[in-house]
């Protein structure tokens, strides 16, 4: 019997799907940066406010946090055999990632509705 949420195959697949999305997004973001003629405060906000970019960034954030969760989870399970230590470490990691997700999505939302 496996503990709920700690199975192997589904995270393994999600790790790879998110990796591909992250890699493709990074190429897109890098290209946008290269093709931009200047990097200013107004230009930056305008770029983030474009719906397509806004949603792509939101998905990027979710993909990164999901990817990080699986990766750090694997590291914790590799090096911390103690159950209490695992629960503590994973809770802390989850808290940091969920907090970052809400914060990042809020920042994206505020720009989108401005």
């Amino acid at each position, binding site marked *: 019997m496996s503990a709920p949420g700690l199975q192997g195959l589904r995270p393994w697949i999600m790790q*790879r799907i998110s990796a591909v999305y992250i890699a493709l997004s*990074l190429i897109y973001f890098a290209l946008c940066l290269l093709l931009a003629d200047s990097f200013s*405060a107004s230009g*930056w*906000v305008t770029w983030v406010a474009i719906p397509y970019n806004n949603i792509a960034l939101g998905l990027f954030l979710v993909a990164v*946090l999901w990817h990080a969760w699986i990766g750090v989870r694997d590291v914790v399970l590799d090096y911390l055999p103690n159950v209490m230590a695992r629960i503590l470490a994973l809770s802390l990691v989850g808290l940091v990632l969920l907090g970052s997700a809400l*914060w990042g999505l809020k920042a994206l939302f505020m*720009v989108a509705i401005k």
Partner: protein
Amino acid sequence: MAVSDNRPFFLNLLKIHLPVTGFVSFLHRISGLLLFIAIPFSVYLFDLSLQGSTGFDQAANILAHPVMQLLGLLLLWSLLHHLFAGIRFLLTDLDIGLSKAHAVRSAWLVFVLELIVLVLVVAGIKL
């Protein structure tokens, strides 16, 4: 403890000769952890940079600090190593480059590529 167990036991890192493929793998994990630690700070800077021109300048000033430049370089390397080593692992999943000769060559390629892109990005930022 069993008395007969007299195998040599040492974890002297200088005596462990990791093959280049092992280095790619080990550094993939290290860089991943560094990137994870950077997430909340990156989100903070992202949010700050979107707070009009004042916030944008504040974020730019934070990033201009010498300590932050050094950390930024470390994180840029982490990102590039994690990306290239990750692509190599994805190809491994697809059974591409499994022979020892190919695996060693692709491991070296990861290091060469990340170094080239790192230099290009840093040069691009400085220009």
